[in-house]
């Protein structure tokens, strides 16, 4: 027996493959997924509430799935928009994986869904490593978190296809330095769009919906330099397409044993009543 084996297997290959399949499967059914990442409390749910309400007003078929370590509060809040919502409890797991998402969508996601919003677990570290089969990865940061957030969490901000600053209504009060933030975003993710929003002041509400719809309609999403697929292929700026298959993981991981993960439990929340209004977007390109 040879004592050393040259394995050369990508560790994330299994999740990446699953994500790629899920993306293709959803696209075939006319659904584009938006993966929302931020620190705990940045305002994902608040912004999503406003965006879902707007989508409903405009007659866009959307659905939302929110993942938390505990409580069903977020799904309850989101369900007030009147769109299909599902709470996923991760039972302690700090992130969602493509496999888990696929499991939760099966038998739940309405067939006519145009956009599926996934609110990931509030955490800027772990979820950044897991492709969920999204067509648009959105990273949010509130004005209270400090301008150097993109440098402290380069994997998240570096792989974002859209960056949303939240709680813009209190930017002045907390002395948020917009230029410094933009400089830091550009350092780790040149070319990504940064938009400024406030769910409370209804500022920039609708930007997320518009960008998501554009991608769902086939527009090329921003392709971050840090994107593993971009890096692996080495042609970052050909067509801006994000849907190719990454190489370098074709070494027999497919027929291996599936590693087990708790899928947690999930609950659905019915509609209730709608809320509010659109507003002019404010955005720049990093």
């Amino acid at each position, binding site marked *: 027996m040879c004592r050393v084996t040259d394995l*050369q297997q990508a*560790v994330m290959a299994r999740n990446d493959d699953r994500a790629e399949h899920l993306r293709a499967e959803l696209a075939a059914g006319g659904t584009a997924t938006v993966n929302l990442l931020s620190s705990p409390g940045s305002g994902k749910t608040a912004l999503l509430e406003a965006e879902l309400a707007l989508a409903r007003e405009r007659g866009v078929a959307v659905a939302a799935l929110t993942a938390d370590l505990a409580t069903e509060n977020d799904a309850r809040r989101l369900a007030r928009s009147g769109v299909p919502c599902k709470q996923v409890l991760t039972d302690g797991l700090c992130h969602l994986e493509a496999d888990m998402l696929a499991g939760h969508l099966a038998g739940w996601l309405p067939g006519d869904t145009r956009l599926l919003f996934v609110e990931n677990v509030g955490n800027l570290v772990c979820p950044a*490593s897991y492709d969920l089969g999204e067509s648009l990865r959105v990273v949010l940061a509130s004005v209270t978190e400090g301008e150097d957030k993109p440098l402290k969490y*380069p994997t998240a901000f570096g792989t974002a296809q859209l960056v949303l600053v939240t709680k813009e209504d209190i930017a002045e009060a907390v002395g948020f330095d917009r230029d410094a933030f933009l400089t830091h975003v550009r*350092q780790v993710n040149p070319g990504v769009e940064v938009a400024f929003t406030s769910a409370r002041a209804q500022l920039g509400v609708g930007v997320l919906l518009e960008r998501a719809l554009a991608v769902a309609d086939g527009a090329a999403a921003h392709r971050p330099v840090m994107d593993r697929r971009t*890096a692996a292929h080495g042609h970052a700026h050909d067509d801006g397409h994000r849907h190719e298959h990454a190489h370098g993981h074709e070494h027999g991981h497919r027929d291996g044993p599936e590693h087990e*993960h708790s899928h947690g439990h999930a609950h659905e929340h019915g509609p209730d009543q709608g809320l509010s209004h659109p507003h002019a977007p404010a955005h720049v390109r990093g």
Partner: protein
Amino acid sequence: MHEMSIAMAVVCQVEEAARAHGAEGVETVTLSVGELAGVVPDALRFSFSLACEGTVLAGAELVTEHVAGRARCESCGGEWATGVPPRLCCTRCGDSRTRLLSGRELGIATVRWAEGPQRARALEEL
């Protein structure tokens, strides 16, 4: 801490390779870890030791090979070490059309198998 999920994926892949090679034990697993891969080698080592328990990898050592981040500018052809946090705009001309050459790696490079007890006994008897 997603290092646990990653460690479990590593263990899973090595278990599979061990079956394919008829290996009875694992001495070391060497991982290539890019400095921009988003994992902390120390956390990974800790999780790995837990994930190995009760498997053919029990007692295996995890060795991580650091891969530096490097980028190239499509505009001027300049190349540089990205550092952490990475500088991904061109450090020479400032252009944003750049590409990452390395730094996102997270892969099992090699596995060193241990002599299993059966084989050790067979050797002793010789």
